[in-house]
């Protein structure tokens, strides 16, 4: 990788260098980032590992940003395919003014914004490649897989949306601890709560009142109906997931050569 744009921050802008310099200027995170990039230059985190064919996201702050970028790529590609309708009819069949059409359209825009943001923000020498998804387990003609469908039946659009949104929330929450730069933590926080809003609404569409449920939240049960606050079992906490757990699921939706390696995180 090259470092000239970083070591000469007052040089004339170039198309390739501009985003990075803007980022440093506006975040004020230049000090921390400089250290990160030096670290990043010492290894080849951003390359596809020739032995395993996996995409290594790297470690520390850049690793977390790449990890988030990977998940946002997956979500953005999924919703783009939903609304484009090239491979399925479910979205096209939704009423023009239906809530669900509006929801899926919004989600496609939000996830595109997240993906583009990471693409434009992670330094060019450290960013992972564009991943190729594998959505062969999703039926884009169907909203919700039928209850009691036989094993191996493809997911519908809503099933997959719920899986991606819940996974994203659990992933961001589980990765925050690996960040050392508070600016990045704040940025991740801005995104994860939007993912949680998405997840809750998709879940309510699937089955009303499941916006929080025991598969995603460690629900709290009061000791009695009149207990004082704080007395009971459970925590009311989201069930965050470690990167290794998240990737086991995410890799099911990525083609060979695009599967993720998060061994540098945690």
């Amino acid at each position, binding site marked *: 990788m090259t470092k000239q744009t970083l070591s000469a921050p007052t040089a004339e802008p170039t198309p390739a260098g501009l985003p990075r310099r803007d980022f440093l200027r506006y975040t004020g995170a230049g000090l921390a980032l400089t250290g990160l990039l030096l670290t990043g230059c010492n290894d080849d985190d951003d390359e596809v590992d020739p032995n395993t064919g996996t995409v290594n996201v790297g470690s520390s702050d850049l690793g977390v940003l790449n990890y988030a970028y990977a998940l946002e790529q997956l979500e953005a590609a999924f919703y783009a395919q939903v609304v484009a309708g090239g491979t399925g009819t479910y979205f096209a069949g939704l009423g023009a003014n239906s809530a669900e059409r509006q929801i899926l359209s919004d989600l496609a825009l939000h996830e595109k914004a997240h993906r583009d943001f990471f693409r434009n923000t992670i330094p060019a020498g450290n960013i992972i490649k564009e991943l190729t998804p594998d959505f062969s387990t999703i039926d884009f003609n169907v909203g919700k897989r039928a209850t009691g469908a036989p094993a191996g039946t493809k997911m519908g659009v809503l099933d997959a949306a719920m899986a991606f949104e819940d996974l994203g929330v659990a992933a961001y929450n589980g990765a925050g601890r690996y960040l050392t730069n508070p600016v990045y933590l704040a940025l991740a926080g801005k995104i994860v709560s939007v993912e949680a*809003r998405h997840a809750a609404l998709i879940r309510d569409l699937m089955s009303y009142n499941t916006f929080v449920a025991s598969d995603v939240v460690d*629900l709290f049960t009061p000791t009695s109906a009149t207990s004082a606050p704080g007395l009971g079992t459970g*925590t009311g906490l989201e069930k965050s997931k470690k990167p290794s757990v998240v990737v086991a699921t995410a890799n099911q939706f990525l083609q060979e050569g695009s599967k993720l390696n998060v061994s540098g995180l945690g």
Partner: protein
Amino acid sequence: MDLFQIITEIEKVDPEVYERFDTRRRVFKHLSGMGKKLTAAAVPGFVAALFNKAYGQNAGPSVADVLNLALSLEYLEYYFYDTGLNTPGLIPDADRQAITTIRNDESGHIKVLREALTKVGGTAIPDPGRATFDYSGGKGSGLGPFAAALLPGGTALYYGVAQSFVDTGVRAYKGGAPFLMTNADILEQALNIHSVEARHSSHIRTIRRGLAAAVSGPGAATTPPGADPKLSPKSWISGNDQGGPSPNTNPSTADVYGPGTNPPPPGVPTGITFPGEDNVAQAGRTITTDSTISAAAASEAFDEPLDYVKVKAIARNFVKPNTLFLD
């Protein structure tokens, strides 16, 4: 100048010197990177800034301070939902399960935050009790603009106030998280509360869309947002939601969706600012331009943090004077 020698000397009289610079790891990260990049002339300024941060009078809130602010907000929410559930005729039957779940989640958060405070050697504030709160927004007078929210028939207003509380909470956790980075386990717990609050917000907003269209229960989720985001919002914050459920009262919900304190109050890490929810610029990127999307979509895609000063100012409207949320 040998910085490490200086710090070692300081450590003899102040064993916590490393903790004062964010964390031990971060101070070394700064130093190892800085040595290669800083000119000799710039070093004294950098060192001054580092030590000012460590020993300046306005170091900002401690981990315990942040956790106790979060705990105070959880009590505010807990008693609001609990009171609602115990007010006959207020919460429609179709929503009782959801509001009970939300109330219980807040109770769990109270438990987690108390335990976290013990772990960091802090002292959790005592349970302030229901009587501390004035959900009318009257600072103890009971005569604020939201007094009807807890009366039978006040359902729409009740959910509007609930949305404002929970969105304040989401923003508060986002603003507080950077102060918790010295303790990874507690940070992760706070993040795991933050996303649950966002799920709550999404559902309350869904209920409100239904209510605005006279739909209760599952039909709320398939009710599109109305023309007025103050009454029938999306499940995410679009622009500034036109100031939220009640922008023209005092207190106003516009503060919940507007900008926080800028320049940021003491202790906020450099680079973190507090724009309103209608912000479309992130880390120097303009999201509307980068992704060719509308300002509404760009603002929806990113929630914004709120600083502790602004959070307390909002919350003080809902407690008796000199009880919680003190400066």
